[in-house]
């Protein structure tokens, strides 16, 4: 008797599951409300709590991943360097889309503050390059501010030719070293807190 009723219940369970799966159209939602099954009736409350915890964990994981992805996106947009022509500090046409992406992100996240670092290639005088790097950082700041980003959100610093990206003496290295870098000094709500 006990055997038969158990096998009946098993049947019922199978049908129920099939119905649920069919209702989902092949794509199970991450949260499946457990059908009250006869078999686990012995400890029904414990199991659902476990599943709920699991579901919450998954939700949190998902949320974390989403935020991580968003954070990576924002950071990579902000970290993207812009480059300059020799002995110039004006914003090149190819730098504008890079800075525009930053404007978008900075508007989206008003809590983020940046330190703009100006760098130079090795060719000019060491001391003049400090001044030139400062003008590059300032040119970038001015550009971003002109699109409505609060000037107080930027600090500028020049490293002249003291921190080259590429340690070499050729056109390619010089081109890469003439740059502005962006250091996030405050991550705003990306930094965990809101």
């Amino acid at each position, binding site marked *: 008797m006990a055997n038969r009723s158990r096998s009946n219940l098993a049947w019922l369970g199978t049908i129920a599951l099939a119905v649920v799966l069919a209702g989902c159209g092949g794509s199970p939602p991450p949260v499946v409300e457990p059908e009250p099954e006869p078999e686990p009736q012995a400890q029904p409350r414990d199991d659902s709590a476990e599943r709920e915890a699991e579901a919450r964990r998954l939700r949190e994981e998902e949320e974390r991943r989403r935020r991580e992805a968003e954070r990576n996106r924002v950071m990579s947009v902000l970290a993207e360097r812009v480059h300059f022509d020799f*002995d110039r500090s004006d914003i090149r046409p190819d730098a504008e889309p890079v800075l525009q992406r930053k404007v978008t992100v900075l508007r989206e996240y008003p809590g983020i503050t940046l330190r703009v670092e100006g760098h130079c290639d090795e060719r000019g*005088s060491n001391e*003049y390059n*400090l001044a030139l790097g*400062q003008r590059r950082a300032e040119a970038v700041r001015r550009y971003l501010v002109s699109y409505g980003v609060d000037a107080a959100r930027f600090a500028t610093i020049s490293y002249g030719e003291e921190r080259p990206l590429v340690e070499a003496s050729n056109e390619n290295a010089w081109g890469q070293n003439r740059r502005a870098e962006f250091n996030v000094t405050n991550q705003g709500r990306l930094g965990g807190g809101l």
Partner: protein
Amino acid sequence: MRAIETHNRFTWQSRKRVLVARIGRWTSALAYAVALLAPGELAAQERDSIPTDVRVGILYQPAFRPGIVMPNVSAPEGLQELADSIRAIILRDLDYSDRVQVMPVGGGIPAEGPVNYDLWDELGAVWLLLGVLEGPADAPTLRLSLHDVVFRLLQDVEAFELPPLRHRDFRMAVHTGADRVIRWSTSSDGMAATRIAYVEKAPGGSEIYIVDSDGFGMRRVTSDSSIALSPTWSPSGERIAYMSYRDDDPAIFELEVNPGRARKLVDLPGLDLTPAYSPDGTRLAFGSTVEGRTEIFTFDLSKRCCPERTTYVRFANSLSPTFSPDGRRVAFNSDRLGQLHIFVQELGSNSAELLTPYIYDRSVHNAGPDWSPTGDRIAFHGWVAGVPQVFTVAPDGRGLRQLTQDGRNEDPSWAPDGRHIVFASTRDGQNGLWILDVVTGRIRRLVRGAASRLPDWSSRIDSASRFKEDSATGPKP
């Protein structure tokens, strides 16, 4: 010919009387060359008849260097080793002064007895330097006497109290003696008792180092573990102002060389860079950020306050100031004309005069000016086909001269004698700091090292007085 005349002003006086005394005996080539260079006596046909073996060009000026001999320094038992090292230091200093020709001394010269002028005259020496060292070992005295071999008389004599051999000021005290000998023999000041500060690569970026003018006593004097740049000596040679990123925000610091303490001197918003002391030590000129560009300020060192702006040019940088010897003018670097040039400006006025020639060429890049302590020239580096070379020019923009042509040659700084220049160079693939004598064109390497740069030559360092202060307050290791 202007260059040659300038040179003559330096050496003619000291040379003339020797010439008078010895001209009969000289080989004709040298005498002829020297006689030709007498100021104001150059007739056109004489100029054309310069002997072909004397090269007259931008880099070379014939200069007569009278011979000097220095026999072994006599010393009591136990001090001979000290005496030998003193002699070695002095001989090297005399050689590096480029004003005298150090001649070898043969053996068998009696140290005692009256000076045998005939013997030295036979050797061709003009000067005889005798040294006597007297004990005790922990406070020796060096007596130097300089004899004029041509006129057979004692030119001058002085006793120098020296610190003990291992004292940190020992070498500097001996250098002071060598400078005195140069003074006696040429009526011009030497530059042996000086140091050079410079920038060297280090973990975290760069640190400031110092080295004696003869290449000895090299040591690191900052430990910021950051980027340190643009060292400059205070007129007394006791302090170095420099720029450092050690607090993240670049500021100007002042370092007490002994015992080596640094404190923040100037920190305006933005970048503070390229400090320079006024010759009287009362003011500091430097560059600082104004609306993203760099302008020049002065700062009152006695009150330690009151930055005062001296340049007002929108959309351009002004930096790297250097004072004239009278402290009334500064030469500095600016890109206000769209090219990098050297300008001279009266302090308190707002009009700067262009010093370097304006050429319609993108590659003009003149930088790193340094006003000679004798006032007559300003050294800087400028690009020749994209490679920096050292130049000098008079403060009125006349007489531009290129002094170097091998490799990159950057950031010149004058010695207090106004004729030697230290600069960073890559000549012959032998990177480092090099010293050039502008008059003779002689060149020597001071510091080996691919990353040694931004040298600054100190004034004469009065080690003797400081050594005495030390002894008054008790001995120091």
